[in-house]
């Protein structure tokens, strides 16, 4: 409701619709109901090896700087500045809470598929109830995305997780794949919920609330004639854009997206690789501690020392595991979502949309772009800050473990020394 009100005010007051909403950057907060504690991303799911030519692992490359030649800066418009201020000041005014969990396998004679449970809690009047529980499959999400794109052709619609991964997949539905998908679907719905305009979309409401048969019959009503026409017009128009004289602002946006796409893809690869390396380190460490226990069996005088070392190593091992799961919870999904965003934004129709935004000089539409950029910055910042925090915590835990070992050894030594004195 707030979004609607603001949107209608926009032409008159000149305030942006997007940024003024009190949404929390970054989408839905985790709920107690949702699972996803120790599910880990498998490297096989995202085949790394072929694409890693540009990753340097074992050589120290002195030439790090590769500055861009053209003008990188976007002028700081008053609009985006207002957006920024608004984000920091407004409290969280969410009235729609969505969780995606409990993946379940369904087997029919024709196919096997997974459904996810979606729980919606809301205080909004237009909803018949304050709580809803439905089951949806990936196809349904695809449908929803399509409808949103149709209804709001000029807005940036959040990306869905990949349809399926062909390379390196042994089983279409292994646990890690399902968990990753679940998290991404959760994110998808929350992004929509947080969007000032999309959150009030009717199809979205039906998706969240309708029973299975209701949804099926609603789906059967195909896209409207007008929207179908609209799509064709758009497609023709985009192909005709060619060598038009594009405004500078647009060029800068375009360049930004291109470079952003490059960078975020690299960051995604690096992050996945780090996860893989940490996992392999963890696997080796698991074996390391027990050897010391084995050794203690044959050393009378060193039993305690060896056992203590073994337990220190085991504790550090657990800390590594925690660090890994932190990475897969916080950093990896965020970065990957932006990879998907960037893929979408690079598409010709999307670029066409951007051009429209700029050409129309419609504040409401431009605000969507600004909003997206703002979210992106906040999300990336948060994700990396979290990663740093995880690492600090990891090292602090290990430090405490080894320091207490050292103290105990020193104390023992002092005890022994005092015992020796006559």
């Amino acid at each position: 409701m707030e979004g609607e009100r603001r949107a209608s005010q926009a032409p008159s007051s000149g305030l942006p619709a997007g940024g003024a909403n009190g949404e929390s950057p970054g989408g839905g907060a985790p709920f107690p109901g949702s699972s996803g504690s120790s599910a880990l991303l498998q490297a096989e799911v995202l085949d790394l090896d072929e694409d890693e030519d540009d990753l340097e692992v074992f050589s120290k490359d002195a030439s790090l700087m590769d500055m861009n030649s053209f003008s990188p800066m976007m002028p700081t418009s008053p609009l985006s500045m207002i957006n920024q201020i608004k984000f920091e000041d407004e409290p969280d005014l969410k009235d729609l809470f969505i969780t995606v969990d409990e993946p379940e396998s369904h087997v029919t004679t024709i196919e096997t598929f997974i459904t996810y449970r979606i729980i919606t809690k809301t205080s909004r009047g237009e909803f018949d109830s304050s709580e809803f529980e439905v089951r949806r499959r990936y196809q349904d999400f695809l449908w929803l995305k399509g409808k949103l794109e149709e209804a709001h052709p000029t807005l940036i619609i959040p990306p869905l997780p990949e349809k399926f991964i062909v390379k390196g997949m042994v089983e279409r539905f292994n646990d890690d794949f399902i968990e990753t998908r679940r998290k991404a679907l959760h994110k998808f719905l929350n992004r929509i919920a947080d969007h000032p305009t999309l959150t009030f979309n009717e199809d979205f409401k039906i998706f969240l609330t309708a029973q299975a048969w209701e949804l099926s019959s609603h789906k059967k009503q195909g896209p409207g004639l007008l929207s179908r026409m609209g799509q064709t017009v758009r497609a023709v128009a985009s192909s005709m854009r060619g060598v038009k004289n594009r405004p500078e602002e647009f060029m800068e946006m375009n360049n930004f997206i291109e470079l952003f796409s490059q960078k975020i893809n690299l960051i995604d690869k690096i992050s996945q690789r780090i996860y893989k390396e940490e996992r392999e380190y963890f696997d080796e460490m698991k074996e390391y501690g027990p050897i010391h226990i084995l050794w203690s069996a044959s050393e009378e005088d060193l039993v305690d020392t060896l056992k203590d070392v073994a337990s220190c190593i085991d504790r550090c091992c657990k800390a590594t595991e925690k660090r890994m799961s932190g990475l897969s919870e916080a950093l990896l999904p965020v970065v990957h979502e932006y990879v998907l965003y960037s893929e979408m934004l690079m598409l010709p129709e999307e670029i066409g949309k951007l051009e429209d935004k700029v050409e129309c000089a419609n504040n409401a539409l431009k605000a969507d772009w600004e909003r997206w950029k703002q979210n992106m910055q906040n999300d990336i910042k948060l994700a990396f800050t979290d990663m740093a925090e995880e690492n600090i915590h990891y090292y602090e835990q290990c430090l405490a473990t080894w320091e207490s070992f050292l103290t105990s050894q020193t104390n023992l030594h002092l005890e022994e020394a005092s015992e020796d004195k006559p």
Partner: protein
Amino acid sequence: MEQAPPDPERQLQPAPLEPLGSPDAGLGAAVGKEAEGAGEESSGVDTVFVVVVVLFTFVQMTHNNFWLKKIEISVSEAEKRTGRNAMNMQETYTAYLIETRSVEHTDGQSVLTDSLWRRYSEFELLRSYLLVYYPHIVVPPLPEKRAEFVWHKLSADNMDPDFVERRRIGLENFLLRIASHPILCRDKIFYLFLTQEGNWKETVNETGFQLKADSRLKALNATFRVKNPDKRFTDLKHYSDELQSVISHLLRVRARVADRLYGVYKVHGNYGRVFSEWSAIEKEMGDGLQSAGHHMDVYASSIDDILEDEEHYADQLKEYLFYAEALRAVCRKHELMQYDLEMAAQDLASKKQQCEELVTGTVRTFSLKGMTTKLFGQETPEQREARIKVLEEQINEGEQQLKSKNLEGREFVKNAWADIERFKEQKNRDLKEALISYAVMQISMCKKGIQVWTNAKECFSKM
């Protein structure tokens, strides 16, 4: 990397009055002040190292006069050389500079007394000699001949500078172990090793130690069926097998862990590169990204030093891996002695039996003589007397030999066990110290990690 400061506990106990090995000639080394180390020119590729000096004290007994002399031994340099080998083919090898200094007790000044170059094979010769002349001693091991338990970064090449450096430290440690051993330190050949550059090999060979060496010891797979094994030695042998097995396993896994850890750190370096590029296009996040990237680089490069330190820890464990072999060698010698003793006793018993039969006229044991007598007729009383006399002489001799063998055996066991006790205490001390130093390394690594990531977090939060 410099070694830890000198261990004051490495004091020598006074040598026993009648050492079993080569007599006399303690190390009357002169004293030299610390050499400069760097800057000595050499042919070919040069690896020059910081002089590492370790002090220890030993007591020399000469004519009941005691005086304290501190001597310092250091293997201070390593140099690549080319020469011709025994087959007149050109070869490349590394030579190590051994410097000996003695510190005058009164004024604390150190004077360089001896300095000479030795190659690894000469160290091996010294050790082989010591093994023969001190069979009851757990002889300190040499550093590994070839690099083992490598993880990917370390070269397995003997000419690799890092390997040469670690070997230099290992060789120094070897010499210090001998010099601080109450019995071995007094060996003349060892003294000459440190003082007589030319002709030393000939001197060693002249001792004829190779002939003295029991070739049976070389047959590693041969088992001697000992009827009454000494339980202590059997247990020791089992212990040494376990020690070898567990340390090997530990070193293997450690190498794999090091490899993985290297990977984790280095991949983070890629963040540095990308952040830096990205910061160029991001106005608001630019500065934060740039400095965060710098910290990622710092993080990535910090692993090199960390793992270098760990390599020294691995070397400490390796020494005890090789010590296990030295323990087994002592057990083996004892086994052989026991076997010989049992064989001699058996032989004596059978001769006594033969003699008794001849004297009493009963034939209980089979003998060829007995058979031929039956076939070709009885022997004359004179012939029988002669045979009895020979046997009695042999029995006498045999009894003397058995007596001395027994004595030898008991001496061996007594002395071996004394050295084994000494070794055990040394091992417990050293291994505990090594494990503690490992903890110290981990702590240092964690502190570095905390610092880098705290800095990075600050940069991220400023984005």
